[in-house]
């Protein structure tokens, strides 16, 4: 059974596409057949982050409309042939996505892939609903910032009420929190929400913490998912998240257990 995972957030620009590209690449490198689907119709970006923009011929909407087959539209990743990318359409309107059409695509992908990662557009409108509708699991990407946390909570509300699993009364969508653009130093200073703060509001289990990292921009400049930079802090964080998705032990990086009181800090040293 394929695991269909939506990467979603409500708020825009928090790191969904960065996360989708890295997690999909990491799962493929671990030997799992993985497809990553760009649901951001009209604002295609996953192709750039994955570095395959010049190989796009057909897109998601072409396949839904029967103008191309799934195999014609899928782009096999240059770095690992276990990974395929299904790009979003750049021109059509968002209503091109239908529950029925998306269902056909995902059914098709589930036949050959172990993981299907759905990169959601921002917002809580049609596009975001289409991306989350068939999800078995959701990775809610959240920045440690009030507006992002609030929007994540609204997305959780949609997962509870508008997903296929909710509508059909099945087991609920499994939700994971991925905290992105985290700055441990600012948390220590008290001017950024910490991991516990965000978790206590959202109340879902933590999949990982990705630090604010210059390497993310450099990686996207080059069209290489940041997980392929194993020396970078963000790359390591995504690698750990991949292990956790696969149910393996992953080392908790020091930033995932921030020291709270200053006394604790003094006693334990800087680790």
């Amino acid at each position, binding site marked *: 059974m394929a695991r269909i995972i939506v990467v979603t957030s409500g708020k825009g620009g928090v790191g969904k596409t960065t996360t989708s590209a890295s997690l999909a690449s990491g799962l493929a490198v671990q030997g799992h057949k993985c497809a990553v689907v760009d649901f951001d119709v009209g604002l295609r970006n996953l192709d750039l982050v994955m570095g395959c923009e010049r190989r796009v011929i057909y897109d998601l909407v072409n396949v839904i409309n029967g103008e191309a087959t799934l195999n014609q539209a899928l782009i096999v990743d240059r770095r690992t042939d276990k990974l395929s990318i299904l790009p979003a359409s750049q021109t059509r309107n968002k209503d091109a996505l239908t529950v029925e059409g998306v269902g056909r695509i995902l059914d098709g992908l589930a036949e050959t892939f172990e993981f299907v990662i759905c990169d959601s557009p921002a917002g809580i409108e049609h596009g975001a609903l289409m991306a989350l509708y068939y999800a078995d699991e959701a990775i809610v990407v959240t920045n440690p910032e009030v507006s992002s946390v*609030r929007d994540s909570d609204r997305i959780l509300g949609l997962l509870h009420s508008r997903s296929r699993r909710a509508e059909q009364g099945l087991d609920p969508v499994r939700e994971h929190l991925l905290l992105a653009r985290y700055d441990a130093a600012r948390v220590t200073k*008290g001017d950024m929400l910490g991991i516990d703060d965000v978790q206590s509001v959202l109340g879902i289990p933590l999949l990982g913490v990705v630090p604010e990292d210059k390497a993310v921009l450099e990686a996207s400049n080059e069209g290489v998912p940041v997980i392929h930079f194993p020396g970078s802090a963000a790359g390591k964080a995504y690698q750990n998240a991949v292990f956790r998705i696969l149910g393996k032990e992953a080392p908790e990086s020091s930033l995932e257990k921030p020291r709270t009181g200053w006394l604790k800090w003094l006693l334990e040293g800087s680790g």
Partner: protein
Amino acid sequence: MSLRDILRPKPPLDTVRAQRKGSSAAVARERLQVVVTHERNHRGGGTFCIPTLQQEILAVVRRHVGVHQDQVCVKIATRQNISRLEVSVALPESNTPE
């Protein structure tokens, strides 16, 4: 703990200051808790959990008739932005009123 840690006073001092003055992160957390709780209460159908609802309906029905878990079905049907809660209970034959 290393000597370097002792000689580097900035983080603990900052933390102490933040705790004493009330940090902006603490303010953020408070505001979020208020707004998120408020929005959850007003979401109306947005947040209730179907499996929980199903269990509770099952418990109520069972006070009157012996039904099995699988005989109570709760789901939400959404069509054109109108959501409808559908509850169906299949009664066992012995309990069907004549």
